[in-house]
């Protein structure tokens, strides 16, 4: 077997098996730190052994067994462990690998531990990417523009807190489950959004590595909790957003808004999968949560062949439903964009202006105002709003787009189609 084949087998195994190995070891040894280190050592050993001996028939089992041995070696080395505990662990030395079903449950346990509400949000994100996603500390540090040492400390502190405070390793009780699942989804949505609207002057405008990782983890959670409507909703939302990724940034690195996107460049397979998931949730007849409604809004957008074909009354009806669940000003802002298409920019501007107190620091508020003012021919006010939006925006493609729009205000004739205003109906 060639070196390239072995490399590919290891990459594949890392992708498929990392979370399984960490989860199985966490359950067995009750210690995230030992599990993480032993899993990393097992993968390092695989690089060596598989090149020499070939890829084993069951890479997952090989990795779990090797990681188990590494963990036991470490526990043996650590003299401070008391003898009784050591002996107990040694007795289990030759345990057969866990049944696949049980290991799947372990991964779910691991996710809930990493996303525990007693941990800070940024810590949950980092731990999830490390323990479930298998990203290295330097990769996570780069993703969030944090120093490697600081990210390493954050993860180390989190593992220490989990151990000292005894954050449990289990799927929460039915009573706590909805709140805890929504905590997990918030972590995944944050990872996705950071990829989708990456911030920072030196960052790529869209970080495909992060959106792909968020989708992969959401797929995993959906496989583990297929009945949860919000998990399916979030996956559909991500797929329908990801489908537009390549059409969303121009060759020159500028954001392309929904109305100007080349819809032929959308990923039809992702759109079809997203639509199928939305239909599946609708068919259950169960009242949708926030992510399911956002997915449905994106399904309406991706069903239209042209901006003019968009069923705006359907979009508005969905936003009305969303406002009931989430009366936040950001939802109200996105709702106003649909209002502009149905009732005109003047009505929408009145609604947007009412949000000024709460959203003055949010670039999309100013970008939306700028666009509505432009459509009303109030160019001077529009220019001022673009200035504020540019100042607050963190995404390079968005800044380029807003700057062009502002600079075009002088040349009054704009034979464009009606513009959706904000970059996307997606908060």
């Amino acid at each position, binding site marked *: 077997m060639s070196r390239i084949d072995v490399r590919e087998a290891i990459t594949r195994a890392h992708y498929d098996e990392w979370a399984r190995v960490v989860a199985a070891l966490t359950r067995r040894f009750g210690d995230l730190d030992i599990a993480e280190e032993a899993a990393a050592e097992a993968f390092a050993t695989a690089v060596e052994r598989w090149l020499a001996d070939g890829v084993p028939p069951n890479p997952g089992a090989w990795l779990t067994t090797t990681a188990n041995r590494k963990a036991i070696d470490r526990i043996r080395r650590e003299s401070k462990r008391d003898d009784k505990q050591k002996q107990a662990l040694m007795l289990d030395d030759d345990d057969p690998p866990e049944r696949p079903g049980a290991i799947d449950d372990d991964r779910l346990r691991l996710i809930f531990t990493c996303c525990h*509400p*007693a941990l800070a949000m940024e810590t949950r994100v980092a731990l999830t990417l490390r323990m479930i996603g298998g990203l290295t500390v330097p990769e996570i540090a780069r993703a969030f523009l944090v120093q490697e040492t600081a990210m390493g400390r954050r993860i180390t502190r989190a593992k220490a807190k989990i151990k*000292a*405070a*005894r*954050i*449990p390793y289990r799927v*929460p009780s039915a009573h*706590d489950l909805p709140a805890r699942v929504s905590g997990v989804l918030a972590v995944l949505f944050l990872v996705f959004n950071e990829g989708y609207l990456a911030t920072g002057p030196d960052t790529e405008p869209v970080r495909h590595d992060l959106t792909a990782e968020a989708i992969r983890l959401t797929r995993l959670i959906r496989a583990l909790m297929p009945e949860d409507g919000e998990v399916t909703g979030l996956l559909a939302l991500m797929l329908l957003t990801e489908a537009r990724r390549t059409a969303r940034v121009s060759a020159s690195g500028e954001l392309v808004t929904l109305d100007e996107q080349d819809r032929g460049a959308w990923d039809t397979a992702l759109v079809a999968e997203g639509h199928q998931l939305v239909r599946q949730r609708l068919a259950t007849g169960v009242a949708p949560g926030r992510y399911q409604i956002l997915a449905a809004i994106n399904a309406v957008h991706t069903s239209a062949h042209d901006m003019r074909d968009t069923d705006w009354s359907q979009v508005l009806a969905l936003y009305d439903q969303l406002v009931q669940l989430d009366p936040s000003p950001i939802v109200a802002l996105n709702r106003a964009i649909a209002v502009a298409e149905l009732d005109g920019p003047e009505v929408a501007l009145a609604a947007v202006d009412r949000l000024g107190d709460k959203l003055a620091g949010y670039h999309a508020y100013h970008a939306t105002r700028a666009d509505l003012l432009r459509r009303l021919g109030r160019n001077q006010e529009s220019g001022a709003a673009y200035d504020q939006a540019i100042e607050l925006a963190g995404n390079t493609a968005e800044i380029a787009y807003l700057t062009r729009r502002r600079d075009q205000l002088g040349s009054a004739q704009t034979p464009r189609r009606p513009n959706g205003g904000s970059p996307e109906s997606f908060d």
Partner: protein
Amino acid sequence: MQYLVSVIDDGAGSATPTEDAAIDVFNDRLVAEGHWVFAGGLASPSSATVIDNRGGEAIFTDGPFLESKEYLAGFWIMEAPDLDVALELAAEGSKACNRKVEVRPFQ
């Protein structure tokens, strides 16, 4: 596993009779369910004395070691199998005593 649940007062002062009654009900639950280890309310921080005997001669200083708007007004020590149970109990305790609480595990 034992957890210290500190009651943080930010100026409310002594517990009212209603709060005291709610705390009694909560304490009864802790005892009945096997979570009770110890609990107590503290007199105001101004009644504290700080002692430093690291230098061979004990030095007594009037007042709390940290002047702050928020102070420790009382505490529970609870027995719980893990943090989820401790957090659930602490949430009940916070409601009963009508104050913020902090959960911290013993070593």
